C-alpha cells in the first residue's frame, strides 16, 4: 500500500460507507402495483406521452433526445437505480449540476417520471431458452454477488443487476459473459497508472478532472492521485475486472442468461 493509497483509503472508505448507506436508503422503486405510499400515481399512456413532450422540451438538451446522455448522464435504466420516487426527487430538487425543475407542477413531474422510466427498455424480446431458477444457482455458485447487487443483496464493484433484464437482451449476456472485455458497460473502464516513484495501480476510473484521478480496485478500495505526480496514465481497452465465463457449460450459460433476463426490477 503506497502512501497515497493509505492516506486516501482511510478517508475514502468512510465515503464508501456513506455511499453504501445512501444506496440502501435510496428508493429502490415502488412496490408492485406502481405506488410508493400514496405519492406515486398510476401512469397512463397519456401521462407517458405528455412526459415525452416535456422531456423533449426540458430535459433533452442535457440528457439527449433518447435519454442516452449528453451533458447530463444516461438515463436508461435509471428507474431501477433510483425508483420512481427517486427520479421525482431529482427532477423536483435537482442533484449535482442538475438544477431543480421549478417550472413543473407535481403532476407534470410525475409525467416526466412516467416517460423516463421507459427509457432504455428493450421491449419484448425472444425469451431466453434456459431455466431462470437453475440460473440463479449458477449465479450463486460462481460468486457473482461478490461484485454485483440484485435488490439489496450483493456487492458494489460491478453494475447493479436488479433490472438488467429490462435493458439488455439475452444475446448481450451471451456475448458479454464469453468476452467481457470486448464491450464493458460505460463507467467500468480500467485505467493503469504509474506514479513517478514507481507505484503501479490499475482500477476502475471513478472520476477524473484536470488535476485529480480517482480509481477503485477490485476490492472496492479508492485511490486518489494528483495527476502531476503520475508518470503514466494508460487506459486499458479490452480489460475489465469482470471474469470471463466462457468455460461454463452450454446448459449453465443458458440458465444463467435466463436468470439475468428475468431480472426486471420492482414493477
Amino acid at each position: 500500500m503506497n502512501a497515497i493509497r493509505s492516506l486516501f483509503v482511510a478517508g475514502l472508505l468512510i465515503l464508501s460507507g456513506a455511499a453504501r448507506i445512501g444506496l440502501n436508503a435510496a428508493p429502490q422503486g415502488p412496490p408492485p402495483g406502481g405506488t410508493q405510499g400514496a405519492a406515486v400515481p398510476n401512469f397512463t399512456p397519456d401521462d407517458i406521452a405528455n412526459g415525452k413532450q416535456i422531456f423533449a422540451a426540458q430535459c433533452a438538451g442535457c440528457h439527449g433526445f433518447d435519454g442516452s446522455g449528453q451533458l447530463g448522464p444516461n438515463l436508461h435504466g435509471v428507474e431501477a437505480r433510483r425508483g420512481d420516487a427517486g427520479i421525482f426527487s431529482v427532477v423536483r430538487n435537482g442533484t449535482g449540476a442538475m438544477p431543480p425543475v421549478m417550472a413543473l407542477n407535481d403532476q407534470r413531474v410525475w409525467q416526466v417520471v412516467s416517460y423516463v422510466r421507459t427509457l432504455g427498455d428493450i421491449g419484448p424480446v425472444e425469451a431466453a431458452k434456459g431455466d431462470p431458477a437453475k440460473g440463479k444457482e449458477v449465479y450463486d455458485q460462481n460468486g457473482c454477488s461478490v461484485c454485483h447487487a440484485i435488490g439489496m443483496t450483493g456487492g458494489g464493484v460491478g453494475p447493479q443487476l436488479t433490472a438488467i433484464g429490462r435493458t439488455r437482451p439475452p444475446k448481450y449476456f451471451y456475448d458479454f459473459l464469453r468476452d467481457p472485455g470486448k464491450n464493458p458497460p460505460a463507467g467500468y473502464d480500467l485505467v493503469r497508472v504509474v506514479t513517478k516513484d514507481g507505484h503501479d495501480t490499475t482500477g476502475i476510473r471513478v472520476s477524473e478532472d484536470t488535476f485529480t484521478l480517482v480509481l477503485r480496485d477490485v476490492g472496492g478500495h479508492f485511490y486518489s492521485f494528483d495527476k502531476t505526480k503520475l508518470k503514466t496514465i494508460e487506459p486499458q481497452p479490452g480489460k475489465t475486472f469482470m471474469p470471463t465465463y466462457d468455460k461454463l457449460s452450454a446448459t449453465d450459460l443458458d440458465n444463467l442468461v435466463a436468470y439475468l433476463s428475468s431480472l426486471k426490477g420492482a414493477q
Partner: protein
Amino acid sequence: MRTAKYLVMLVALCGALPVAAQQVPYERLQKSDAEPQNWLMYGGNYGSQRFSGLKEMTPQNAKDLRVAWAYQLRGGGVMESTPLIVDGIMYLTEPPSNVTALDARTGKVLWRYVPPVPRDFVPVGLFPTNRGVAILGDKLYLATIDDHLVALDAKNGLVRWNTVIADKADGYAITQAPLAINGKIVVGVGGGEAGAHGFLSCYDANDGKLLWRFYTVPRTASDPGADTWADGSWSNGGGTTWNTGSYDPELNVIYWGTGNPVPDWNGEGRMGDNLFTCSLIAIDADTGKLKWYFQFSPHETHDWDSSEPPILFDATLNGKPRKLVALANRNAFYYVLDRASGEFITGVPFAKQTWAKGLDAKGRPIKFPAEQIEPSAEGTLVYPALTGAINWTSPCYSPITGLFYVNARDAGAYYVKGERKFEKNNSNGIVGGGGGGSRPGPADETTTSIRALNATTGEKKWEYKMVGDSWTGTLATAGGLVFSADSAGNFLALNADTGEPLWHLLLGAAVRSNPVSYAADGKQYVADSAGNTLFVFSLP
C-alpha cells in the same frame, strides 16, 4: 431600518456620497473601463470584453488565492448569473428570475426581489434561469423568464415599472441580461425551439415605453429576407436573440447574435439561407434599423445558434486602424469582421469541426457534401456537438495581450433527422421541437480547452487542455491572469501570456457561469458560481 443601515455602512466603506453611490448615468457606462473596481454591465464593458483593469492578483501571488466569502441560493437551480458590482454593492440574479443585492465585501444580503413567475410555466429548450441585470441611473433592469421587463429601484428593489415584452404562450422565454445604453434598455428573447419569432426590442429606460423592435425573421412575404425561406417557412419563427449583445457608443450601433431556424435538424421544409438566423446583426440604436448583417451559418441544421457574445476591439490591420468585432461561433469558427461595415476580415476554426472545408472570401462556409454532414435517420457524426464549440458562456479579450481567450469544446455528436412537421408552441407550454436531435459522439473524445487566440488573426498562441465538458466563460485581468473552470468545478487561474496553470480550487459542483472581478474597500475580488453557490475569492 436595516437596509438604510447597510447603505450607510457601504457608503462609509466606499467613501462616496449616498446619491453618487447609486447613480450610474450613461457616461459612467460609456467609460466603464475607468472604474475597474466596478462591473457595470453583463459583458464588463460595451465591447463585452470581460477584461478587468485590476492588478492586485498576479501570476506571482495567484497561488495564495482563497475563498473570501460565499453566498448560497435561497431557492433552487443552477446559477448562471453575471453579477453587477456597483460602488460596493453586488446585484446577483438567481433562478428563475430573482434579484439579490449583496454587500460586495462580505456577501451580506441587502434586499431581494422575487417576481411572481407562474410555477406551471414550462419554457421550451432552456433552463429557467437568469444571467444578470443591467443598471442605468438609479434603476436596475431585469428580464424575467416569463417575458417581463422590470425596472427596480437599485436602492431597495422596489418595482418602478413593469412591461410585457412578449407572450409566453407563444413560446417566448428570457434568461439574458438586458443592455442599458443612453436612456434605453435593449433586450432580446429566447424560445426558438418553441417557434418563438425572434426580435430585439428597445425600451425607454424611464417609463418602459417600447421605442423600436427589429424582427430577425420575416413576418410577411414582403419583409426583407423572406425570399430566403422556401414556401413561407419564415412562419415557423426562430432566430431568437437569447444572449446579451454589445454596443459601440461612437457608431451608435448595437451588435447582437441570432439563434437557429426551426425546426433545427430537419431543414427540408425551410430551404434557403433562412435570414436573419445564425447571424450577427448590427442595429442603429436610435431607429432600430438594420445597418448590416453577417450570416455565419446559412440554412443551419445542427442547432448552432450564433448567439455568442460579440467582442468589440480596435486594431491596426495593414497599417490602418480598424474597428473590429470578433465572435467565436458555436459552429467552431472564429470570425473577425469590420464592425462599421460588416466586412468579413478573417475566419478560422478554433475547435474541432468536420462540417466545412473552410470559408470563402466573404466568410460564407464551404460545406462538405450533405451526406457527410446533414442529420440523417441513423445519425451522422459531425463536429462540433449540438452544444457547440462554445455555447452561451462568454470569451474575453485583453487589450494588454491582444489575445482572445475562449473556453473551446472539442466534441462531436450523431445528428438525427426527425419529422419535418413543425408545430408551434401552444399555451400549455410543452409543444415545439426540433425535427430531430442528436446523441453523443465518442465520449472519450470530448475535451475543453482554454485557447488564447491572436484576436485579429485567430491564430492560436497557447492552449490549456482540461478534462471533460466545461461550461464556464473566461475573465482576463490587467494583473496578467485568465480565470475559468473545468467541468468538475475546478476554478482556476492561468498565466495570460503563457497559459501556465497557477492555482485551482475544486468548488464541489460544475461552474456554469462567467467569472467577474471587482474591488471593494480597496481589495480585488474574483467571483464565480458553482452549483447553487456564489464563491468570491481574494488574496489574504
